[in-house]
């Protein structure tokens, strides 16, 4: 048994001590104040660390989470800190370890199960849906399942068809699950902590390409008690001409598109969904009632996607406010190709978002050409 050095950290104190390694202090050129930045990777790592420290029932399980320090280094350092009983390396048997995780949650522990990517969650999907999501309902409240399934979701770079699918729509369809989709470091910290503390099964969809990106984080975000509410979207950029709803990596693309559009006189409001289930319909609808136009953006397959649900919701709740049909930008309706040029065509680009916004604003000439 490895000797375990347990850090005696009060869960609500000393954020600076917890996160020293994760913070890069950046000196601003113009001002003497400093802004703290944090990568999404460090945000997730610190969130796991703090929640494991605060509650001895929280444990991690997955492939390479321990000795390898995490396939994407998200769980780096946690084995040394908490020991092999709480950071459990598994064989490559998703159905088995997802089931074991759910069983442990039935008993009252709080497992955080990592899928190396969510593509492998399909091997365990019966446990996520039938053993976890539905149990509280079928047992009329006797068997609750405080489990988190986390890992990278969606397209990476050049990993091909079997390693690039986005599962937000599939999991988002299931009552009994909560599905979260962080974008920034703040999202990653706040939503993962909320997920671990939540008494219900949570599917936590990260993005591999975001792990290395840095985002500014305030002192509030760095505090170990920081938590974001589940089911509330964030308005990343306010605007008045069109609403863009999106999540995960596409938030960054939508913000870039909004900059380009601003230079062309279109003010886009960018909503970072943060939560696929529950979906923040009230924020979305309030925004559409303000802007009267909607473009949904996602990386996943278009049919029965997240955008389809958002469009339906807006048509049901705010039809009278729409000045244009809802536009959808999504991944291509094809398995993900490998060749770089084809891959680029298979995922949304900033140009696609700009074009769709212009269509929604009746500013595009191509509409006339196809008529």
């Amino acid at each position, binding site marked *: 048994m490895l000797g375990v050095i347990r850090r005696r950290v009060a869960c609500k104190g000393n954020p600076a001590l917890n996160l020293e390694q994760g913070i890069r202090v950046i000196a601003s050129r113009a001002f003497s104040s400093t802004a703290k930045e944090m990568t999404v990777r460090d945000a997730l790592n610190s969130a796991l660390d703090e929640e494991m420290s605060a509650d001895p029932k929280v*444990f991690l399980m997955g492939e390479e989470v321990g000795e390898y320090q995490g396939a994407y280094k998200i769980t780096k350092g946690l084995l040394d800190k908490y020991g092999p*009983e709480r950071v*459990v390396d*598994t*064989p490559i*048997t998703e*159905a*088995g*370890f*997802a*089931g*074991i*995780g*759910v*069983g*442990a*949650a*039935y*008993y*009252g*522990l709080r497992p955080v199960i990592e899928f190396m990517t969510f593509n492998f969650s399909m091997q365990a999907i*019966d*446990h996520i849906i*039938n*053993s976890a999501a539905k*149990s*509280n*309902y*079928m*047992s*009329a*409240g*006797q*068997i*609750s399942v*405080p489990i988190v399934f986390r890992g990278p979701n969606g397209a990476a770079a050049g990993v091909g068809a079997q390693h690039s699918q986005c599962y937000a729509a599939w999991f988002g369809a299931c*009552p*009994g699950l*909560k599905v979260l989709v962080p974008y920034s470091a703040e999202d990653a910290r706040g939503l993962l902590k909320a997920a671990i503390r*939540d*008494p*219900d099964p949570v599917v936590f969809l990260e993005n591999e390409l975001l792990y290395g990106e840095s985002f500014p984080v305030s002192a509030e975000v760095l505090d170990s008690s920081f938590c974001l*509410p*589940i*089911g509330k979207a964030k308005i990343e950029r306010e605007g008045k001409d069109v609403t863009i709803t999106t999540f995960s990596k596409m938030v960054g693309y939508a913000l870039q598109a909004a900059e380009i559009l601003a230079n062309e006189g279109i003010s886009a409001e960018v909503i970072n969904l943060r939560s696929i289930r*529950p979906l923040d*319909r009230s924020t979305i609808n309030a925004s559409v009632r303000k802007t009267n136009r909607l473009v949904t953006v996602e990386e996943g397959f278009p049919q029965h996607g997240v955008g389809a649900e958002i469009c339906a919701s807006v048509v*049901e709740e705010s039809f009278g406010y729409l000045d244009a049909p809802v536009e959808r930008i999504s991944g291509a309706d094809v398995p993900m190709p490998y060749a770089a040029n084809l891959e680029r065509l298979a995922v949304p680009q900033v140009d696609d978002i700009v074009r769709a916004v212009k269509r929604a604003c009746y500013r595009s000439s191509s509409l006339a050409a196809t008529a």
Partner: protein
Amino acid sequence: MAQLTHRTSSLLKPLSFALSSTRHLSSTTPITVETSLPFTGHNIEPPSRSVETTPQELIKFFRDMALMRRMEIASDSLYKAKLIRGFCHLYDGQEAVAVGMESAITRKDCIITAYRDHCLFLGRGGTLVEAFAELMGRKEGCSKGKGGSMHFYKKEGGFYGGHGIVGAQVPLGCGLAFAQKYSKDENVTFAMYGDGAANQGQLFEALNMAALWDLPAILVCENNHYGMGTAEWRAAKSPAYYKRGDYVPGLKVDGMDAFAVKQACKFAKEHALKNGPIILEMDTYRYHGHSMSDPGSTYRTRDEISGVRQERDPVERIRKLVLAHDLATEKELKDTEKEIRKEVDDAIAKAKESPLPDPSELFTNIYVKGYGVESYGADRKELRAVLP
């Protein structure tokens, strides 16, 4: 978490008759019983065939099994009367497994099984009314009518269901064992499955991890020789399920003999706490078909079924033992059975009085914490609810 009213198990009701003072045995005098067959071990020395019991336990075994038997027969009638809908998988014939296991363990040990769960539920402290009401989809049911036959639970009694997906309960059971070890509880989990589920990949995945991590998991194969309509020899290249764990030791047990089951479970519990997982194969038999939709006679002969009933019926075995040890007369046992019949009938009547759940229950228990989000009925403009 829902607070279910704790009801004393009907199985713990006082004995229906006083042991006659002319009998030479007090209710706690130890009696030694031989199991019908020796145990067969795989990579392990099997336990002895001599099992310690008492008159009290013998009588209790009879009563408990007769009650389970009666409950299942009554459920058959209720299903045919269309008061039970959907799936109904009956356990009659297999009672010795439930009763023998229960006698070897405590309520802090966990049991998890698949959908043939009515009798195991009773053994864990569930009541007849809770069972019948659940079968009929009423609000007094153990899952408030929202689960049905395949989804009985009794967490406070260590019973974790009640699962509809064949094989899923085995990794779940290993997860319970993981949690018991993590919590340093010194208890074990019995993860039960059938000969049909014994070929499931996830079982071997979970068993591998249980063995790697020395989890206190006991995998119990209730081999009733038919996975739905498929006989074991058509489904398994090796139907010696107690050997299928390979590096995990196993024991083959006569599942129609409650004392063999008791001995095996006691042995397994001691083993699992010290050495990790072990497999128990209970050689048992179900009189009914796979479910109420299956007559059970297209893939096996009526002679086979009646043969087992003649030679190996678990309730009859105990009746003979009780009579042989002079613990009760035939008439007393018949009276007990009459009382049980009445108890079951009364429970059915009471369950019938229970109303269907309130329509608002459609939207309860989706989440423990709903954050005030909305859920919808078929027509969301007509029916929607805010989840607490």
